[in-house]
């Protein structure tokens, strides 16, 4: 059991040293963002120039890096407190969907009029910042841009919770599927475009589509959407090309996927679901982490002295009840982990629950060491790594 865990950590350490993109995914609340930040920091301390990027609109990366907020562009972090002379460097950023979208429009439109037509489109103004789904499209664009940026030799990408991480993977395919088909041509039909609405619809099929669309979604909606698509007309080829590139990038040798799970049954089950999806899509898989595993105080007792402890009976009973409670949680988790282990062909990396909340660089380094050290949780408890004093910080 211990040797497989070591193997898992070794595999992940190798990926961290060699790959150019690491995508960290998993369901919500398992410590994915913290893991992504910890891995990025480890790589930076090993000498790489790393960018930690979150596409999660909840902006949690900033918290785990001990920063109040992150901007839409990479910001370099000061590592001098961790290592007097850090050989590598670490940047962090969150994805600003709106700004990325704007930048793409700026970059890929041919003239000022076309640019304005898009940026001032009512639909665009709403879609680019507010609507779910646009994050995934933009993350894809951003990833492509960052992978070409020679300031960084590794990009660690944190993703939204499971279902949406899948969305992220599917975004390129979905976009090309959309651009490929008649959907667009249908939308670009003149009768949907403002000003031409009064034109008599010539064909019977046209009239039918027109009538139906009005009843289901309303002409105004379709008109806005059509104008939005029309404004982008000149950019479709570029979109398609880039989507194809991302598709290749995510499946290439330079990329690696790290899956993070929690020890609770629900998140282990979700991790298995996601693992199968990644395998099915033939994504390059480099690590499976089970985070925040609780120790079992009853199995971890070591040698028990013969002399009875000199404490009050009531306290002894209270302590025993507590240990039984904690042991029950540990058993619950062990069963779930064993089930996952039986279903996957990759080694698991088990990371113990820390007593303190991790939300600064030093805490992140500890987490990173725990992940890459790959030792079993019970041994680590004795290392003293977990005995860091809890000192809550008022923000």
């Amino acid at each position: 059991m211990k040797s497989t865990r070591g193997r898992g950590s070794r595999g992940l350490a190798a990926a961290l040293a060699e790959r150019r993109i690491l995508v960290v995914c998993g369901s919500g609340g398992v410590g994915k963002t913290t893991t992504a930040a910890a891995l990025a920091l480890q790589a930076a301390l090993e000498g790489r120039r790393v960018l930690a990027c979150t596409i999660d609109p909840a902006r949690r990366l900033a918290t785990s890096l001990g920063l109040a907020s992150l901007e839409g562009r990479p910001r370099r972090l000061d590592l001098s407190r961790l290592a007097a002379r850090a050989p590598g460097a670490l940047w962090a950023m969150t994805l600003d969907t709106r700004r990325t979208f704007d930048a793409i429009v700026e970059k890929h439109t041919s003239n000022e009029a076309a640019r304005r037509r898009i940026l001032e489109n009512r639909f665009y103004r709403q879609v680019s910042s507010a609507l779910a789904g646009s994050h995934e499209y933009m993350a894809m664009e951003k990833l492509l841009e960052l992978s070409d940026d020679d300031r960084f030799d590794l990009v660690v990408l944190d993703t939204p919770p499971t279902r949406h991480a899948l969305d992220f993977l599917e975004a390129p395919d979905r976009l090309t599927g959309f651009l490929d088909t008649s959907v667009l041509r249908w939308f670009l039909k003149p009768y949907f475009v403002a000003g031409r609405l009064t034109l008599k619809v010539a064909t019977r099929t046209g009239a039918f589509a027109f009538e139906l669309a009005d009843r289901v979604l309303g002409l105004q909606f379709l008109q806005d959407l059509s104008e939005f698509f029309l404004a982008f007309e000149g950019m479709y080829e570029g979109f398609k090309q880039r989507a194809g590139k991302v598709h290749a990038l995510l499946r290439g040798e330079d990329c690696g996927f790290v899956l993070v799970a929690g020890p609770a049954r629900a998140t282990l089950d979700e991790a298995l679901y996601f693992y199968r999806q990644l395998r099915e899509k033939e994504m390059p898989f480099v690590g499976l982490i089970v985070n925040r595993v609780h120790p079992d105080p009853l199995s971890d007792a070591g040698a028990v002295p013969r002399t009875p402890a000199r404490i009050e009976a009531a306290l002894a009973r209270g302590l025993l009840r507590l240990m039984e409670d904690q042991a029950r949680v540990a058993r619950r988790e062990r069963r779930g982990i064993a089930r996952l282990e039986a279903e996957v062909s990759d080694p698991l990396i088990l990371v113990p629950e820390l007593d303190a909340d991790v939300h600064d660089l030093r805490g992140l380094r500890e987490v990173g060491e725990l992940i890459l050290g790959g030792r079993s949780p019970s041994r680590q408890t004795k290392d003293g790594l977990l005995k860091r004093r809890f000192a809550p910080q008022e923000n």
Partner: protein
Amino acid sequence: MTTFSFRFAAEVGGAEDAVALPLVELKGLILAPGPCLPARLRARVSLGRMLLDDLLSRRLVVLTGKGGTGKSVVGTALALAACARGKRVLLVEIDAPLEASRYLGAAPVGGREAQIRPGLFAVNMDPAAVMDEYVRRVVRVDLLARRVLASPVYRRFFAAAPGLPELMVLGKIMVLEEQRAARFSSRPRYDLIVVDAPATGHGISFLKVPVAASQAVPVGPVGHNARRILSMLRDAERTALVLVAVPEEMAAVEAQELHRAAVDELGMEPAVLVLNQCHERRFRREEEAEILRLAAENADGRLVRGVGLRAALSAARRHLRRRKLTQFYQTRLRRAIPLPLVSLPYLFDEDLGPSSIERLAQRLEAA
């Protein structure tokens, strides 16, 4: 009942900070009545009850919060508490890979509303299926509807049109909320609908869709429905937004962000903050001091056969640290978010099953 009073006594023992706070912040504390209850605290019990009464008197309860905070567990417990009051309840999940019904020992229900307990119904909405249903209803001619649904243009459009899936799901929830039990009945089909919204980042954009759509598309069915959905969500008589957090830094930060976004961007007033997975006081003050003293002395000995004191002390210190974190975040969130705070305990159960959820529901009910 006796265990409750005992627990309550333990809670009060550690809640001096809470007692000192003004009443409005205390009304979230749900306490079990018992013989040990001091007179000055008795008022709080009814306040706790009032909070739950108020919450469950709405038609729609939407839960949101960071992933992993136990939204679906809290939602299921709320649904059970409403059921216990004789309400007909629908528990809505959206595209959930694993359904909350499993906590109650029921089979997955999928996209069709199904009864999983007397008075408790569940549904796991698939946005694409909801859209299909909508098309079928609007296009009344079966043949035409089938032609639309079979068309690849329609499929691909739905997959790629931003915001449309969210809008469809919210529209469906609104339809369910407005449904009557029978044709001429004044009784609604469901007294209460509990919605387990996606985790924060997406939860907030999920709820933002009708805001965006109503602005982007002023006329036509999309804009019209978006505005109707919005007025339902913003109507505090009908809808309660429940924030769920756990006593951890990131969940706490996210709860604060979520509260701000709900008020500023959605125009919704959240009703309550549930702090889940709280570590409750287990030792008396003198016992805690004794534990720390023994640990500092590195004391050892045999607690019972096969269990050493040293292991017990490290387990106890782990508990005390978690307990301290719980108290820290309770205080901080009470200060940071002007909402009643309800604390639910961390569960040490062998498996999260029906009895676990029932216990949480009882804690919410505190009767």
